[in-house]
């Protein structure tokens, strides 16, 4: 381990202390039901996806090739996985990298943002006749939700392509929070409570007339259940999981005072509350021009947020029950274009995957330093999805009948043995 890493450890310890204090503050705020109090590997599992939208360059993140033609000016630093280097702009991530497996040979067939996002989100290529559910929607749909009064699948940040429930139904689609850490919109009645109550009573009475002669299809539509859930949510104590106002300033600063940093902090709070799937979006990785400047800017946001999230989850004993996936829709070309940018590249990109009881500290696959040959040990998205579902205790081979009766497997891949502890 390098000197710089040892120096960083001191900071981390300090942070750890702070975060532990945070645990006490959090658990005494009576945010939750039992789910929030469970700890360790026995706790019901959840998934956090840090979605790097636009297609992050593998060469300027987890798979640098310094000193080669394709590597450009990017330098690399040592990490806590011995013999493995990542881009120099990620010093804090380098420190906690051994919490993850680094997969450097992910391949897909889609180089368009929307289609690429679809593949990485769902494990299937877009088809005109069916909408496949995103990984988060599957996790939400398949795992128990306990006494949760807030949505069990949440999407934080202003991502362009929503994570959809597809054939699992609209209720599995992520609840979207465009500005994480800010006040949630639409949760407060627009009038005073008394007037609101009167309105609701009138609504109930007036709806009755419409139900007559139509009770069966309306009951099947879950209309009332949805309204009831919405009303329950409006007054739920658990809503505090969306708020960060009671977090110490140092914690906020460690995550980063911007939408993504706040999103990662909210993600941790939601997971702690028992939410099953959360994704946090960081936009801006589409670096067709000025790849190096833009990638560095993204790293300044991602590096502290990601490493703080991991440290925070560990300090709260939530790491073993939380799978953390860090990915985007594809990578970027080994060739540097005349605008000093890199273009779309689905033929060998990198992701980080860890937590939830998965193996850690491993590096899977490798890309060609010349950028010509296909990557070693190519890994497809369905394999990653199957691995995540398996570790979350979901039968990845399960077939679900779509509304038109077509059976589709949750994912078409098989889990990767290398991602599991021996």
């Amino acid at each position: 381990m390098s000197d710089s890493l040892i120096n960083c450890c001191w900071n981390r310890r300090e942070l750890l202390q702070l975060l532990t204090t945070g645990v006490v503050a959090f658990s005494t705020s009576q945010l939750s039901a039992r789910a929030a109090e469970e700890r360790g590997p026995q706790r019901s599992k959840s998934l956090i996806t840090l979605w790097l939208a636009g297609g992050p360059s593998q060469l300027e993140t987890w798979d640098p090739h310094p000193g080669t033609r394709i590597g450009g000016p990017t330098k690399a630093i040592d990490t806590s996985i011995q013999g493995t280097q990542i881009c120099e702009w990620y010093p804090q991530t380098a420190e906690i990298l051994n919490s993850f497996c680094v997969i450097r040979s992910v391949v897909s067939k889609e180089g368009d943002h929307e289609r690429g996002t679809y593949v990485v989100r769902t494990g299937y290529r877009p088809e005109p006749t069916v909408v496949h559910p995103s990984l988060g929607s599957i996790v939400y749909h398949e795992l128990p939700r306990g006494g949760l009064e807030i949505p069990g699948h949440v999407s934080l940040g202003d991502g362009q392509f929503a994570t959809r429930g597809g054939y699992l139904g609209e209720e599995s689609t992520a609840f979207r929070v465009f500005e994480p850490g800010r006040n949630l919109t639409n949760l407060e009645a627009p009038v005073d409570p008394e007037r609101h109550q009167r309105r609701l009573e009138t609504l109930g009475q007036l709806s009755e007339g419409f139900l007559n002669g139509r009770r069966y299809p309306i009951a099947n539509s879950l209309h009332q259940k949805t309204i009831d859930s919405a009303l329950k949510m409006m007054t739920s104590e658990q809503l505090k999981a969306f708020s960060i106002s009671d977090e110490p300033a140092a914690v906020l600063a460690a995550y980063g005072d911007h939408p993504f940093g706040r999103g990662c902090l909210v993600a941790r709070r939601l997971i702690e509350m028992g939410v099953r799937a959360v994704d946090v979006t960081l936009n801006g990785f589409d670096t067709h021009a000025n790849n190096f400047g833009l990638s560095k800017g993204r790293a300044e946001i991602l590096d502290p947020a990601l490493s703080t999230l991991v440290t925070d989850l560990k300090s709260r004993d939530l790491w073993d029950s939380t799978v953390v996936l860090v990915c985007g829709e594809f990578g970027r070309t080994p060739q540097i274009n005349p605008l000093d940018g890199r273009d779309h590249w689905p033929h060998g990109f990198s992701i980080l995957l860890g937590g939830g009881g998965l193996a850690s500290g491993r590096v899977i696959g490798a890309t060609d330093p010349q950028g010509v040959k296909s990557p070693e040990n190519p890994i497809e998205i369905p394999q990653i999805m199957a691995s995540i579902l398996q570790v979350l205790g979901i039968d990845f081979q399960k077939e679900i009948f779509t509304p038109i009766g077509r059976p589709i497997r949750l994912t078409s891949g098989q889990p990767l043995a290398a991602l599991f502890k021996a």
Partner: protein
Amino acid sequence: MNTSTIGTSTKRAEPLPRIGALKLVLPLFLTTAGVISLFALLAQMGLEADGQMSAKLPPDLQSWKVSAAAVDQIWGTSKTLSQAERADDLTILRRLHLALVGTVPSLEEIRAFEAMESQDRIAQWTNHLLMDPRVGDYLAQRLSKVFVGIEDGQFIVFRRDRLNQWLANEILDDRPYDKIVQQMVSEKGLWTGRPAGNFITAAVTGEEVDENKLAGRSARAFLGQRMDCAQCHDHFFAQWKQHDFEGLAAFYAPVRISAVGLEDQKDFQYQVDDSKAEGGKRTVDLRVPFGEEWLPAQGTERQKLAYWITHEENRRFDRAIVNRMWGLMFGKPLVEPVDDLPDPPVERQSDPLDVLADEFRTHGRSLHWLIQVIVQTKAFQQESKHPSAENGEKFDVASENWAMYPLTRLRPEQIIGNMLQAWSLQTIDQNSHVFVRLFRLFRERDFLKEYGDTGEEELALFTGTIPQALLRMNGEFSRQLSEATPLSAAGRLASLSNDREELVTGVFLACLTRRPTAEELQLIEAMCQAHPVSNATLAEDLYWTLFNSPEFSWNH
């Protein structure tokens, strides 16, 4: 200095007479403007001074009724299953507007409709609507999603706005549907000047036109057959094989984009990758999955395909659009999924789809004709209430036999469209003030972002989500659109109504296209007695309540 003093004193003295003049002139101006708009409106709606619709009864009414009866008859008259009663005219008017305009009718339109005394005012009103540009615009939007999907396509080469505009005009002019499709499939030249060509350019990937995408879309949109799976493999259920799909794609393969727009390369040989073939490539000839004899000998590949798709004997073509239009009118197609139809029955006209499809063809493939006939069916005009829908017993049988009008949730754009229309007493259309049109445009866009657009899944069934319920209860849209202001319907109804009953009736008509029942009036009256509120507050509360009621967001 003097001058300056005089000047100042003049400035001080003038405002008073000016205000006085304004007080006098403004109402005069507003009244004049109002009278002019009213006349313009009357002229536009074809109303005579006595409030009667000038248009005669549609001449084809009897023939529409005959065709509609033939469709209704096919379901038979099961003795054990009762048919729902006929719905009242206002309910049918609401359905009609939701299907053709995408919003509820305005209070202004309801009044004009009710002023018509003819027994066949539904047919008359449908006739009138089919001349309204709003109908062209709305149907074009819905159909273009079917034809080219919802993807943005490639910048520069794909112009959805031009395609929609062209389609809207074609629909409004009632151009035969086969001619519309032929033009989209075989169009040449620049997609800006010849907007039908955007059907092709929507499928551009990279620099190439994706012939596979076009083949899959053509089969789904125009023929109601899902052949997409055959692109990659043979399937033991499907009658289409991979070579059928490739053969179909071969018709689109010669098209390319050049400086002069879309053109077809001459003597083009279509080849696909095939690792088993010599040199890794295999030549594919033109091939259709059925009806080979309909292919003409002359023309470009795309012209041949266009002719084949729309051939008089290609019953799939008529069945596909009939099923699609039925779906748009009811929120539920005759056969589901809407784009995966069974083969046409060997015995002709043994299912409702075939009856209607045959009639559609013999009536010049007119979409206006098709809409008129669907409107004349009992199925369209009956109640959505039924004993089976109350207790669930035999509900499926009743639904399959169209024993009641199907209850379906509205699409997100219909919901915000309804809210916006209910906010205004006047009809919101191309004649509305630019402020109102912009207000509508932005509110619609923002709402869809939050509510979630259903996109291409035109006729999927939705259960609704918690965020949607929250948005409608607490969102800015509900608050703003139900607020009683001098401009809003809530505000105007609150200040213009003579009594509470008139106010409540106005709100119900604007939001739900019906009058309140006696029980509902009584209930609201009792509520006002217990908690006295101002007219404005009552109007706001009622607007909020009705916006959130299932009746508002369901087609029924």
